[in-house]
């Protein structure tokens, strides 16, 4: 067991160092000169070392946009983002970009589209190392890649093959290897298992969990499969239309959901039980019908970690039901 593994078990989660801090993040996209789409509107959260923060919400809720804004695939409209104490928002300087690419990595949804079909696996995985000149010679580069490939369950001979020669699950492992070879502080996993088969999903999730225990990795896990999010995450943020409507530890979100949107999401999770599943009623949530306006709500903290976006009257009503 490495040091990182010990920290994972020893230090309680609330006391761990904050790796990622997002404050008041706004990401607007102009449609034309009069209209903007507020994809992400005033979002704040923290991710602590060695933990997994799950982002859930329906499509179009802005969960992927948050991930992409953090890793600067988009230029955030407003807000501050700090990674391990260093500011990475605002104008990108060369130094900032260098820091960002070294310490933050992403695993993408479609493992076929995200691997360059004309490159060998070894070159795909080593691309980050090459770009940052992290290897002194060929041998060191090879060794580093082999070591990582072994970690994700691939062998040396496979390093000289091309992506099309692998199955979906294996390709996603290559994607994971590419991310962890840089030993990043934070990995953003954007729907990284939703394109895979059920049995292969379990393999990939197990690898991600093992790597977290071994290396103390921190994940921002974006997904719409709530059962999987519950399984892998420590903290969960529920997003709707660019707002965090509820946030908390996974126990708080799943055993004590307050916001009606969270409740409707939870009621929609299919469970592998044919008898209860048949007669289950969906909780329908219509924001306009209920007269909920996210911009009017304030952040109410029920516990230190459990946040609900609501006005005082709404909160009182929701707490009762």
């Amino acid at each position: 067991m490495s040091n990182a593994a010990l920290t994972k078990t020893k230090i309680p989660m609330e006391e761990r160092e904050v790796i990622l801090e997002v404050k008041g993040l706004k990401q607007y996209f102009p449609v034309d000169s009069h209209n903007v789409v507020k994809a992400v509107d005033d979002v704040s959260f923290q991710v602590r070392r060695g933990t997994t923060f799950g982002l859930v919400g329906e499509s179009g809720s802005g969960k992927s946009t948050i991930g992409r804004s953090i890793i600067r695939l988009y230029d955030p409209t407003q807000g501050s983002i700090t990674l391990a104490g260093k500011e990475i928002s605002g104008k990108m300087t060369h130094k900032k970009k260098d820091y960002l690419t070294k310490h933050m990595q992403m695993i993408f949804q479609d493992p076929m589209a995200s691997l360059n079909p004309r490159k060998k696996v070894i070159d795909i995985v080593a691309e980050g190392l090459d770009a940052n000149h992290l290897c002194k010679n060929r041998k060191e580069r090879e060794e580093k890649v082999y070591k990582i490939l072994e970690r994700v369950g691939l062998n040396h001979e496979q390093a000289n093959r091309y992506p099309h020669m692998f199955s979906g699950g294996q390709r996603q492992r290559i994607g994971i290897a590419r991310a962890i070879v840089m030993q990043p502080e934070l990995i953003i996993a954007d729907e990284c298992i939703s394109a895979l088969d059920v049995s292969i999903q379990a393999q990939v999730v197990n690898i991600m969990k093992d790597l977290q225990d071994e290396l103390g990795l921190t994940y921002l896990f974006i997904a719409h499969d709530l059962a999987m999010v519950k399984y892998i995450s420590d903290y969960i943020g529920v997003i709707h239309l660019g707002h965090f409507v509820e946030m908390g530890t996974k126990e708080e979100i799943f055993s004590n959901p307050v916001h009606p949107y969270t409740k409707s999401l939870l009621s929609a999770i299919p469970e592998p039980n044919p008898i209860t599943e048949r007669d289950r009623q969906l909780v329908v949530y219509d924001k306009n019908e209920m007269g909920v306006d996210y911009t009017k709500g304030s952040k109410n903290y029920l516990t230190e970690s459990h946040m609900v976006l609501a006005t005082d009257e709404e909160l009182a009503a929701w707490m009762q039901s």
Partner: protein
Amino acid sequence: MSQKVNNLSQVEWSKDDVVLDVRDVHISFTTSAGTLNAIRGVNFTLHKGETVAIVGESGSGKSVTVKSVMGIRSSNQRINHGEILYTYEENGEKKTVDLLKFSKREMIANYNGKHIAMVFQDPMTALNPLLTIGAQVIEGMMLHLNMSKEEAWKKGEELLAEVGIPNPALTMKNYPHQLSGGMRQRIVIAIAIACNPDILICDEPTTALDVTIQARILDLIKKIQKDRNISVIYITHDLGVVAKVADYVCVMYAGKIVERGTAYEMYYEPRHPYTWGLLLAMPDLNTTDARLYAIPGTPPNLLRKIVGDAFAPRNRYALNIDYEEEPPVYELSKTHMVSSWLEHKDAPEVEMPMELQKRIDRMKKEVG
């Protein structure tokens, strides 16, 4: 317990109302790398008003199976054996035909859309972006039911209302890109049911959709099925979806159905190790184990000849005979069959994994 089984399956089975009978179908594809045996002997029946779900990993042959029912064939496909018997009523007379005997053209002219319709996975690619919704909804009705354009248009508006589109008259004039994913899938369903088919095939109808929308689409399909008394075949790898909709479940692996049974039997009394693996790989909300059970390895390459049980290399309960001889089919009850050597009388007693047993006990407690 038998009481429960009956509760679960809303359909009373009798021999007469079989709509579709798939008998020992073998299909292979000729590829540059050799012959790929995609389907290696599939058997199942579909009764009137019943829902059958076919579950399996990608490449297990579930899509090829239902596509052969629809007569969607590629040029390098060969049907080596078997028949798909479809029974329907025409002018008060009962007719049974073998769908595999028809050419692609005959299928399109006489059966597709009219008798058997399909809902595809991705509603964006299933709809033509250049045509209005209306044009696509009425196409089948004008072709198969000989309706005039005005009649079909009126019927189309009714159909859109039936699938829960808020403003049918306006939506008929819209283009697919103007609708959300869930609404598009509703349109695809409306098109599928336009000509009153007997069989509706849903190929991963909700995979491209969100959880909340997914539940609503499934409810919609269920409602339509009940109202019109049609039979539905679901193809999916999501066992949660299966639990919600299916009366009867077929688990497919490497071109064969390895276990078949009612939904109750599948979830409460699964017998095949592959079914155990599939059930365990999906975490439910109570899963707290440190690791998910993952089926090791990957599905076999069907270009190679498969000796013995195709699942043996990934099966931790595999017996020696699994590597030599294909397991026969064991009938455990009238509805439950499994193809595994573990059911042989000389096989060692093997219990399902502890985690799964615990989960089933928990589920039983939940329903009381």
